[in-house]
C-alpha cells in the first residue's frame, strides 16, 4: 500500500527564505518516494526565487490568502491530480519528516480520515510556551465540548488527509487560523479524526505567524468560529469504525 499510494506533502510558505530550502532538502532526503508541493503565499522575500532556482514544484498565489486559503489551494491541487493522501507540513522546520509516515500510516490503513501529528501525547521535544499550551488546552476542551472529539494538539499543522478528506477540504476550509476549525468541521461532518505522537522542533529561523499581540485576537476569533461552526454544520453520525 505504502508504495502504490500517491502521497503529496503540502508545504505552506510565507516569507520562509531562512528555512524553506533546508526543510525541503530534509524532506527529500528522508522520504524520497513522496511528492511535495510548496505553496508560496505571495511571499515578499526571496522565497519565490529560491523555489524557482531549486526547481521545486510550487504554487504561486497572486495575493496573500493566509495559511487557510493557501493550504486549501494545495488540497485543490491534490484533488485535481488524484492524490490518495495529502500531508500538511510547515515550511519552518518545526515538523520532522522522519515522522511523516507516523502521520500518514493511520490514514493509509484506513484507521482515520485525518490524522494529526501531536506533540502532547508523549510530551517529547519542543512543547511551546506555557501560555500557548494553556490556549491550546482551552481550544481542545472547547472542541471536545462542541463535538465530543478529544484532540490534544488542536493547533498542530502536521496532518494527513485521505482522498475523501482532501475533497472536503478543497471545498470547505477556514481562512484565517484554520487548524482547530478543520478538526471540528471534519468531525461534525462525520470524518474520523485522530492523532498520533510526533516530536516537533522549535522553528529554525524567522518569525512565527502568531505574535504575542495577536494571541488574544486569535483565541477570540477561533473560539467564536468554532461555536458558529457547531451551529452551521449539521452533525453527521460518525462512520462505523
Amino acid at each position, binding site marked *: 500500500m505504502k508504495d502504490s499510494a500517491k502521497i503529496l506533502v503540502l508545504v505552506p510558505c510565507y516569507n520562509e527564505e531562512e528555512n524553506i530550502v533546508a526543510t525541503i532538502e530534509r524532506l527529500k532526503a528522508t522520504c524520497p518516494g513522496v511528492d511535495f508541493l510548496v505553496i508560496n503565499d505571495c511571499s515578499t522575500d526571496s522565497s519565490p526565487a529560491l523555489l524557482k532556482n531549486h526547481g521545486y514544484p510550487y*504554487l504561486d*498565489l497572486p*495575493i496573500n*490568502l493566509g495559511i487557510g486559503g493557501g493550504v486549501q489551494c494545495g488540497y485543490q491541487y491534490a484533488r485535481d491530480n488524484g492524490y490518495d493522501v495529502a500531508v500538511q507540513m510547515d515550511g519552518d522546520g518545526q515538523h520532522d519528516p522522519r515522522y511523516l509516515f507516523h502521520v500518514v500510516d493511520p490514514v493509509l490503513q484506513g484507521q482515520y480520515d485525518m490524522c494529526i501529528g501531536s506533540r502532547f501525547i508523549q510530551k517529547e521535544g519542543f512543547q511551546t510556551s506555557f501560555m500557548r499550551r494553556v490556549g491550546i488546552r482551552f481550544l481542545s476542551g472547547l472542541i471536545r465540548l462542541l463535538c465530543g472529539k478529544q484532540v490534544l494538539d488542536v493547533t498542530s499543522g502536521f496532518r494527513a488527509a485521505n482522498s475523501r478528506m482532501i475533497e472536503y477540504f478543497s471545498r470547505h476550509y477556514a481562512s484565517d487560523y484554520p487548524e482547530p476549525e478543520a478538526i471540528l468541521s471534519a468531525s461534525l461532518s462525520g470524518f474520523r479524526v485522530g492523532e498520533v505522537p510526533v516530536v516537533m522542533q522549535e522553528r529554525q529561523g524567522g518569525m512565527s505567524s502568531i505574535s504575542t499581540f495577536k494571541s488574544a485576537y486569535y483565541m477570540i476569533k477561533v473560539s467564536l468560529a468554532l461555536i458558529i461552526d457547531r451551529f452551521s454544520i449539521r452533525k453527521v453520525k460518525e462512520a462505523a469504525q
Partner: protein
Amino acid sequence: MTQQLQFVMLAGAVALLGLIFFFLKKGYMSVKYSLLWLGLSVLLVIFAACPYVVYVLRDILDIQMPVNLVFLLMFCFVLVVLLSLSIAISQLAEKCKRLAQTNALLEKRVRELEKQETNKQ
C-alpha cells in the same frame, strides 16, 4: 416644523437622491447596492415634503419630538446599509480567494506546459 427647516431638509433629501442617480449614471455604484440608498433618500424626500407622515408616526410610537423619529429611522437605515456592506465584502473576499486559488493552479499548469515546450525544442 419651521418653513426654513422643512426647506433645508427637502433640499438635502433631493440632493442625496440626485447624488445617487449621478453615481448610478456614471457607473460608480451598481444598481444592486444603490437600492437601499435610493429607498432611504426617497423616504427622506417624503418626510421633508409632507411632515404629516412623521407626525402620525410620532403619535403611533409616542415619541416627543418628530425629528427624533427621523433620526431613529435614519440610524436604523444606515445600520442596515452597513450590514449589507459587510455581507457584500465577505462574499467578495470569498470570491477573491477562489479566484486566486484557481489562478495559482492554472499558473502552475502553464509553467509546466511551457517547460515541456522548451524541452521539446
